[in-house]
């Protein structure tokens, strides 16, 4: 399951999507929106995606994870639009016969997603708003 959605993500459903009878572990990562960043209060977060490419990059992350670790299934769902504080912006679930590869692949998938998947986060705070990433000048390279 790879998806970009505008509604709340049901993490249980994402976990269920990777359930597999050969697996003894499901690791689910839930990224949630935080009420502070860089020492200032965040009032809301808003996400934008290049959806067609974001889905293609999610599939590449899954392919790479499958090559590196013996995992069964992987699901990645990202929410876009306004995500109220405390709600899930991203859910990644990985199943595997054993827990170690499931943890490793899930950790890899969220790290990689943050580096390459074309999705952007705008932080709204009292008195302003900023697109995260743009102010640091960090650049994707490989």
């Amino acid at each position, binding site marked *: 399951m790879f998806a970009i959605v505008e509604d709340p993500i049901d993490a249980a459903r994402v976990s269920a999507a990777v359930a597999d009878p050969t697996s003894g572990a499901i690791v689910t990562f839930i990224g949630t929106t935080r009420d502070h960043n860089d020492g200032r209060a965040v009032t809301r977060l808003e996400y934008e995606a290049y959806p067609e490419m974001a889905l293609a990059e999610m599939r590449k992350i899954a392919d790479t994870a499958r090559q590196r670790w013996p995992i069964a299934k992987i699901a990645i769902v990202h929410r876009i639009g306004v995500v109220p504080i405390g709600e899930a912006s991203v859910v990644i679930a990985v199943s595997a016969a054993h827990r170690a590869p499931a943890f490793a692949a899930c950790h890899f998938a969220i790290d990689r997603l943050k580096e390459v998947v074309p999705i952007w986060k705008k932080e709204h705070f009292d008195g302003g708003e900023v*697109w995260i990433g743009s102010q640091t000048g960090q650049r994707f390279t490989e």
Partner: protein
Amino acid sequence: MIVHLRFFASLRERLKMSAAERTLADGATVAELWNALCRERPDLEPLSASVTFAVNREYVERTHRLADGDEVALIPPVSGG
């Protein structure tokens, strides 16, 4: 040749548009496209170090040669998650 441009996030807001088309010389590179855009909009120039490019939904280097009908996305630093 004509290429189809897409702008996202900070770039979309700065340019006040999410898509555009540009006519380029055959065989033009991504770098040549970017330089042409910077001539139109000098305020893009400071972003040169941080913007990356995707052609037909694949990241490319600036030396990549464009073809007629390509979809070129200008990608500010990503910040999903």
